[in-house]
Each structure stands twice: as C-alpha cells, then as structure tokens.
C-alpha cells in the first residue's frame, strides 16, 4: 500500500503522556490536515515520523516498511522550529541540503534554481539567509523541504507567517505534489485553509486521535440540521413543523425569524417535507443544510475533553518536547 502509516505511536516525557496510541495513515496523493490545540502532540508526532525523536512504542511505515534513515532521505520536512544556517547563502544552503538527501551536485543546482524561482526567492539565492525577511526565510524553508523532490511531505505549520500570496503559492505547491502522488501531511491552526485544502483531516487532543476522516465524513451526523427562513410568523412555522414526525425546531437567537430544524432520524424525505410545509405558510427566503465548519468540529472535539481530570498534561507536552 502506498501510504504513510502511523501505527500506535506512544510517547511519554517522564510522567507526561504526549502521544497515546496515535494511529492514522496518509495515502499517496492525499493531503492530510493535522489539527489540534497547542500541545496536543502534533509536533511530537511529526518529529517521531522524521526520526528526530524516538517513540516509546509504535512504528511509522512508508510503503509497508519502516520509515528508516534511508527512507527518510526521500521525505521533505519542514520543522515547526524553522531552522537554516543564518550565515550561509540561500543557494549554497539548499544545494547542501539537497546533497544530504542524496542528490548529485548538478541535479541539486537545477532543483534549487527551480524551487527558489517558483517560490519567489530566486533573486535572493546569493544572499545570506539572515538577510532575508522572515516571510522569505519561510519560503526558503519550504524550498528546503521540496528541493529533493520528496516522496512524502511532512510540514509542521507551513502556513504560519505567510502573506496571502505566499499562502496561495504554498497551497498550489501542496496540491501539485499531491497530484503527483505524494502523500502530504501538514499541521495548521488555519482551519478554513485546512478545510479548503485537505482531503482528510485528523483532530488530535491530548495525544489521541479524536476524529479522523474526510471533512464530509466528519460533518456527517445522525441529526442533519437545516436553516429555514420563511416569510411567516416563526411560531406558526414551528407549530406547523411540529406536526411532522422526528423534527425539532428552534429559533436562531442571533437572527430573529430564522429557524434551525433538526431531524432526529436520518430520513431522506425530511427536507422535502419541511420545504413543503414551509411553502404553505409563506415565501421561503432561505432553506439550506447547516454544515458544521471544521472550526465547529474542532471546538466540539476540544471542548469534549475539557475535563481537567482527563487532560492535565496536554498543554505541557510540547514544552517537554524541547
């Protein structure tokens, strides 16, 4: 199977449990969004994938075999803590890193030119990294992850600190790599971006994978909800809908006149029945399914665990990693 498999990773820093049986996989050609609050264990997991940190137990596999040092040379990695040699020229530095990943000097030179041009820092190849703005250093950092044409991309917060143009370039590059068959995993707190970009998402909390799947799968619920806005008295609409089986209707507090209709059962006929009932009362201004955004899902997952007895250590986990 052409997938990056993260299999039952466990990691503890002393008494702090940073990861507990973390298990998921990222298929070839898929963009996987890795979300979770600060200290949930995302960085720890990514460091373990790259062998920078050793797991207490569990395994990371690529194409069915362990992701060892040799295989890791084919991975593109962007660490959370950005790091480049400050007093080394952009071009030389990227060529050096490409060489460490096993590229020949000529191939490295070409790849460096390609990626620096593509990421808009081609003119700065002759400058020391420390002379670049933080945003441009970030672009060089991404170039460092891409320069050796990796088979797998692991990017920790690749979008933080980027301007909107750079975000677009970065998104384009990630999509392009995924289309080329590369599994891409990245973490981010920019949830709209994750929602737009990712094929699948994993939400971690306190070192555990709490929700995993495509955005649609995560949104799927046994209680589909619709927003209904009818040109009629809300009370009348509520009374009318109450006659239909398996529906509860509540007014939307922020928008008087609008109603949330929640089906207590999955019934494909429900939307048609609701619309029919509403149309009898007046013109329907709006009738649409209410789909929770990733941010809503995220809040749901995070608040579900807001039991201090369960999660005393999560916020410290990242500190321990340093």
């Amino acid at each position, binding site marked *: 199977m052409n997938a990056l498999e993260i299999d039952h990773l466990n990691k503890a820093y002393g008494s702090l449990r940073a990861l507990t049986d973390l298990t998921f996989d990222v298929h070839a050609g898929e963009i996987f969004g890795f979300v979770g609050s600060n200290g949930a264990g995302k960085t720890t997991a990514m*460091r373990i994938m*790259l*062998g*920078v*940190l050793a797991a207490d137990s569990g395994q990371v596999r690529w194409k069915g075999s362990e992701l060892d*040092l040799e295989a*890791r*040379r084919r*991975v593109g*990695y962007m*660490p959370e*803590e*950005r*790091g*480049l*040699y*400050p*007093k*080394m020229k952009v071009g030389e530095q990227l060529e*050096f*890193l490409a*060489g*460490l*990943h096993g590229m*020949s000097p000529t191939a490295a030179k070409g790849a460096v030119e390609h990626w620096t041009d593509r990421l808009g820092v081609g003119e700065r190849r002759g400058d020391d990294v420390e002379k670049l703005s933080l945003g441009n250093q970030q672009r060089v950092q991404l170039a*460092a992850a891409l320069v050796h044409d990796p088979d797998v991309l692991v990017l920790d917060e690749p979008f933080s600190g980027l301007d909107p143009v750079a975000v677009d370039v970065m998104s384009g590059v990630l999509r392009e790599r995924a289309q080329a068959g590369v599994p891409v995993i990245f973490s981010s707190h920019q949830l709209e971006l994750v929602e737009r970009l990712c094929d699948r998402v994993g939400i971690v909390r306190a070192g555990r994978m709490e929700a995993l799947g495509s955005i649609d799968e995560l949104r799927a619920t046994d209680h589909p909800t619709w927003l209904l806005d009818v040109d009629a008295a809300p009370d009348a609409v509520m009374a009318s809908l109450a006659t239909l089986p398996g529906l509860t209707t509540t007014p939307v507090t922020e928008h008087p006149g609008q109603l949330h209709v929640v089906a207590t059962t999955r019934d494909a006929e429900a939307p048609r029945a609701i619309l029919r009932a509403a149309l009898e009362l007046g013109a329907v201004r709006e009738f649409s399914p209410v789909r929770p955004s990733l941010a809503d899902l995220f809040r749901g997952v995070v608040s579900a665990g807001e039991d201090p007895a369960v999660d005393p250590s999560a916020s410290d986990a990242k500190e321990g990693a*340093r």
Partner: protein
Amino acid sequence: MSSPVWMVTKREFRTRMMTKSNIISLSIMLAVIVVGAVVASFFLDRETEGPSSSVAVEQGVTDLQPHLEQAASEQGLALELSTLTTDEAEQALIAEEDPLDAYLSGDPSAPRMLVAENADPAVVELVTDAVNAYVLTEQIGALGGDPADVGTALATAAPQVESLVAPEESEFDGPAFVVSVVMISLLLFALIGGGSMISMGVVEEKTSRVVELLLSTIKPTQLLAGKILGIGAYALFQIVVLGGALTLAVTALGLTEDIAVDVGAALGLLIVWFLLGYTIYALLFGGFAALVSRQEEIGSVTTPLMFLLFVPYYVTMFVVVNDPDSTLARVLTFVPFFAPFVVPVRDALGGLPLWELGVSIGLCLVTIPVLIWLSARVYQRGVLHTGGRMKLTEALKG
C-alpha cells in the same frame, strides 16, 4: 565520495575558508610573516657587514699590507688600508670624521702601533696576526722553504676530536627551547581555535534550529564527525600554511644553521600531534557543546576544557622543557591529554626513545574510540535538547 559525513565536512571547511574574515586574517598573518622576514633579513645583513677598521702604514712597512689584508678577511673584518707619513697619520688619528684606527711604522717584524687613545682589541689582533704571518714568511724564506706549502699544511693541522662516552644529552639548549615553546604554543593556539570553532558550530546549529532539519536525514554521529573533520581540515590548513611560511622564512634567513633542532622534522611531528590532540579535544568540545543552547552559555562548557588544555601546556613549558627526562615527563608521555604537548617537546630536545613515542601514540589512538563513544552519547542526547543547560550526568544516563 558523497556520503553525508563528507558533505558535512565539505560544508564546514568551505564556510570557514570562504568567509571574508578568514581570508583577511590569513592574509594579514602571512603578510606579517613576510614583512617580519624582510625586516629581520635587513637587520641581519647589516650585522654581517661587520665592523670596519682603517689602518695606515708608513712607507717602510708596506710589506705588511698583504698580510693585513689576509688577516682581515680571515677575521671577517672590513679593512681600509692607506699609506701615510707620520705627520699625516697623527692628524688622521684624531680627526673628527672617520678617524684612523692605527698607524704602523718602523720595523715590519715589530712595528710601532700608534693609536689615538686606546687600542681596539680587534685591530691589535689583526695587526698581531699580520705581523706573525710576515715574520713566519720571512723566516721560512730565510730557511729556504716555501711559505705557501707551510700555509696549506698549517690550515689542516687541527685535532680530530673523538669522545669515548657520548656527551650528556638534553643539556639546556637555547634555540631548541625556543623551538619547543613556539611549537607547543602553536599547538595550543590551534587546539583552542579548533575547539572553540567546533563548540560554536554545534551551538549555532542548535540556536538556529537547523539541526532538526539535518537530523531528519543524517545521524547525529555523522553530523558531529563531519563537523570535527571539516574544522580539523581547516585548522590543519592554517597550521600548515602559517607553520610552513614560518619555516620558509626562518630557512630563507639562514637561521636554521644556528638551531640544532631540525625544524622541518619538528613541523612534521607537530602535525602528527596536532591531529591526535585535535581529535581528542575536538570530540570533547563537540560533545559538551551540545549540552547548551545559547552562545552565551558556551563558556560554561568550554572553560573546563580550556583548563584541560592549559594545564598540559604550562606543565610542558615549565617542567618538561627544563628536564625532558624527568620522571614526571616520562609519566606524562603516556597520558593522552598531556602527550600532544609533552611528546613533541621531548622529541625536539632529543630525549625521547622511539618506543616511548610509539606507545604514546598508541595510547592516544586507543583513547580516541572511547572519547568517540562518550562524545556521541552526550551529543546525541544534548543536541535536540533546548532550553536550559543540560546536565552532563543527565546526558550520560538518558
């Protein structure tokens, strides 16, 4: 060869060689050596011109002239000869400018030597030699012999000294002492330079966090090994260029003739001991530097190591140089941290049996794998640790 270690080595060497500050400082040091050599040769040449004397003779003693000239050339004295009358000579002897040193008159075999006040001993010696030679020639001629044959025979008439017991070795030898001190100072300079470059390099990678990116593709030991090799090559390059320039300058000035020590061989041995000493100390500097995360904290790990370098340096300078065959010196020959300083000095001073040299090098070579293990262990645990200073015991336990 494109192994990761080699690539790291190349990067370390290049980034240090290609910096403006390196090129400038190296050029300045070379310029200082060249200028120093030129200035020294100017002063040395002036000295070899030597003192010059002016001697005048009376008309009747001109027969002494060839003998005076020959004696002057034998004594390395520049001689200005003239023929004057007594009156003229008396004037010239007390002249303000370029006074005459002596005036010879009367019998050539026992001339009267007139001087201004005190006779210059060098001139007295010169004149004595010349008169002796004149008398000898006259007498040989009178006896019917050939003065030239006698001169040749005399030139080779010298004893051939042979001794039954070899002379006491390791007697205090000024030039050898100077060479020793210069050698171990150069070594100390190179080891401190290399050690601080390594510790700064390790901490730079930690503070800039580039180490995480590097360690996702290569092993910590490969990174450390490449760093030590690259910086070692750079330090060796410096020592060879500067040491070589110094040797060349000293040789060009002809100073080596005065020094009993074979400077070329000493430099060769110094390079061997630099490599051993560098490896031993670089491993410690590299491993220990990984314990700290900020440049400001480097001192807390390098100070003990600097101390570890200065102790053998001073012990060698004050104890070993004075008595290279003392028990202490012999014992320290077999202590790896001392050997790089003690052994080249003992060797330069001529007091080191070959087997001691061999055992000493052997012991250093045996110590190195132990230090590699220690350093790699500390480095691996320390290099990804950020925040405060990591305790050594913590890194060793882990």
